[in-house]
């Protein structure tokens, strides 16, 4: 995906610049941006290192498992068709908690295992290889974003001279709640329509 997007930006940008006589600006733009990337990276280095260190403490202390254990009422509500003792429950819970904490590297493996378990469940009941209700719900909720603290965004804002880089945390949580609420309502309506 990024291949085409990036190639489009570069090629279309240069072609457009040539047509409009902006070639000097294009060259300057490319060189300036490359330098900026380095100073951004230095700001990121500090903030990301700090945050990764904090999250590592939580991860090693078993925070994901601990919090995932408290997710079962939410899972009952979101996945009424999923048996209580099914292994998918645990992976879905870990994936959601890791996403909330911003532990992307822990979220994806758990999420893929959850999909595998959901696929096994689907194979027991449906002959056709199509996404089950549980898969749809899981992915829609996942994509609706659950992140609590947008640490990368805070770092970008700090680099560009924001007076309060973290001020967007509260609004971001509010917006995330809106998108997740929309996702939950949509999934519930689809569940209800399919009977």
């Amino acid at each position: 995906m990024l291949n085409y997007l990036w190639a489009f930006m570069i090629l279309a940008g240069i072609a457009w610049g040539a047509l409009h006589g902006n070639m000097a600006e294009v060259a300057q733009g490319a060189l300036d941006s490359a330098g900026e990337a380095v100073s951004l990276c230095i700001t990121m280095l500090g903030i990301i290192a700090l945050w990764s260190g904090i999250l590592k403490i939580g991860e090693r202390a078993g925070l994901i498992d601990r919090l995932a254990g408290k997710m079962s009422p939410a899972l009952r509500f979101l996945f009424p068709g999923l048996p209580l003792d099914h292994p998918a429950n645990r992976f879905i819970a870990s994936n959601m908690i890791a996403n909330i904490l911003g532990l992307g590297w822990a979220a994806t493996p758990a999420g893929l295992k959850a999909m595998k378990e959901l696929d096994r469940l689907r194979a027991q009941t449906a002959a056709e290889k199509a996404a089950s209700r549980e898969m749809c719900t899981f992915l829609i909720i996942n994509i609706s974003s659950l992140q609590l603290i947008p640490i990368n965004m805070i770092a970008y804002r700090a680099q560009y001279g924001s007076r309060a880089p973290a001020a967007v945390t509260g609004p971001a949580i509010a917006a995330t709640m809106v998108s997740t609420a929309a996702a939950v309502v949509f999934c519930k309506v689809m569940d209800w329509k399919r009977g």
Partner: protein
Amino acid sequence: MRLILYLSDCIIPLTILYIVGFGLLMKRPVYDDFVDGAREGARTAAEILPTLVGLMAGVGVLRASGLLEFLTGLVGDAVSRIGFPPQILPIALVKLFSSSAATGLALDIFKEYGPDSQLGLMVSIMLSCTETVFYTMSIYFQSVKVKKTGYTLPGALLASAAGVAASVFLARHM
């Protein structure tokens, strides 16, 4: 709104307090764990340098050539009629496919208007509350070789649209 902004001030310190406290309760060597994590984080941040250079140069070219302005102008009339700022539409669309390309465009907004401007706040919130719909779906469904994705795409797009709308609204009221 004041409550939400107050939340912004508290959430990071409280999260750190909770995690470090939890680590101590579980009898972990919290400082050693912190240093290990910070080392990994520093490595991750250093490793994204090439990606950042590539993307920021791409966006830099797009901006300097005048093409970005032209594309924004194309969609501008239609979306500004419904109260949506045209400058952030490309970011919302690119974010469906690639998080890093969207970041590159967002940084351009920060540079042009400042991160604390209304547009800057909008993109900050927007990129924090949406995911890469097409990328995530392809990874998860490919892993179990399911091609018929049911109602996942409309649901995911609806959730993203709700997040974008909420971002525009919240940034206007901050």
